[in-house]
């Protein structure tokens, strides 16, 4: 549900940046969504289609780069892939985890003509 307001934020952000670079047509926007970001990529992609109507992103291709979650176990210093916050360290089964990667939610780049 919050994907809609986040998509609106992206439109605003991109519009501002486009203005700075004096471009009016965006062909492609690359967005990074981490698996632990709290943002559902499919819903977000759909939301982008909805809110980009009548904006300079209307015809742009939205590309999503997914970043897997990566955690660091503070107990045994093992780094491991995390699919959810509940993943325990596969090495020692502890839950004392620090999230290293996977919380990203950013506009990486724009391709314009």
């Amino acid at each position: 549900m919050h994907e809609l307001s986040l998509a609106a934020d992206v439109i605003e952000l991109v519009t501002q940046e486009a203005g700075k670079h004096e471009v009016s047509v965006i062909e492609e926007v690359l967005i990074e969504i981490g698996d632990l970001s709290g943002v559902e990529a499919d819903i977000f992609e759909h939301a982008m289609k909805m809110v980009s109507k009548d904006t300079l992103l209307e015809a742009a291709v939205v590309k999503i780069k997914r970043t897997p979650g990566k955690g660091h176990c503070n107990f045994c210093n093992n780094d491991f892939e995390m699919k959810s916050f509940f993943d325990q360290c596969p090495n020692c089964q502890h839950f004392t985890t620090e999230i290293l990667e996977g919380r990203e939610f950013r506009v990486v780049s724009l391709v314009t003509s």
Partner: protein
Amino acid sequence: MCETCGCGNPDEVNIHGPGHHHDHEHDHHHDHEHEQAHVHEHEHEHDGHWHSHSHEHKPKKVIDLNQDILTENNRLAEWNRGYFEGKKVICFNLVSSPGSGKTTILEKTIRELIPSRKIFVIEGDQQTSKDADRIEKAGAPSVQINTGSGCHLDARMVHSALHKMEIENNSILFIENVGNLVCPALFDLGEKKRVLVISVTEGDDKPEKYPYMFRSANLCLINKTDLLPYVDFDIETVMNSAKQLNPDLEFIRVSAKSGEGMDKWYEWLGKQG
């Protein structure tokens, strides 16, 4: 334009005092659009570089941004946070699903603390000022944010509400967020502590179902303990699974209705500043 902080747009979200009522006629349709116009002020420069493709007529330009999408919310949240610190205001963001008892807990808290502390409240709901009305009756000044179709409060809305209030130094500000265990987890409002209210009637599997919210909270109030004899709710189960996500999460068991445990909640509040 706000002269103090430079924030610039009119309130597209409806923010008002209590006692704001809509007349509902048969042919009158209320449509609060959840529009967000955000002002982005970027302080750093981005490199743009040119790619020319021989098979295309026009060269394409790739603009690298690497811009965190929640940057603007976080910027405003930090502004709010600085404002609170400057005025020695302790701000709490109360989050929960609808009906867990946030407003009742606040009513009781206000009546208990008002003789010794100044309290202000920002209420968030999609529609109505019912909660702000209750808070005013309990004795604290409040402002109601109606988000329309929006599902969470964000830092901009709180910032706008602050403009409509005269919050005193050394006071407590409670922000009662929209009832929702999903979206508010992502939006920093500038609070000092985030208080998650769950009730014993909601089932003891909430940490697993809503991990983002449990990770983001500082204190979990388990409310409606007076109903424990009538429901299948194992407090240890909730605490154990929540602590896996968030080892620092504190727990207090309360019943706003019977008063049980509320003294521990007031004690916790007192320790925050």
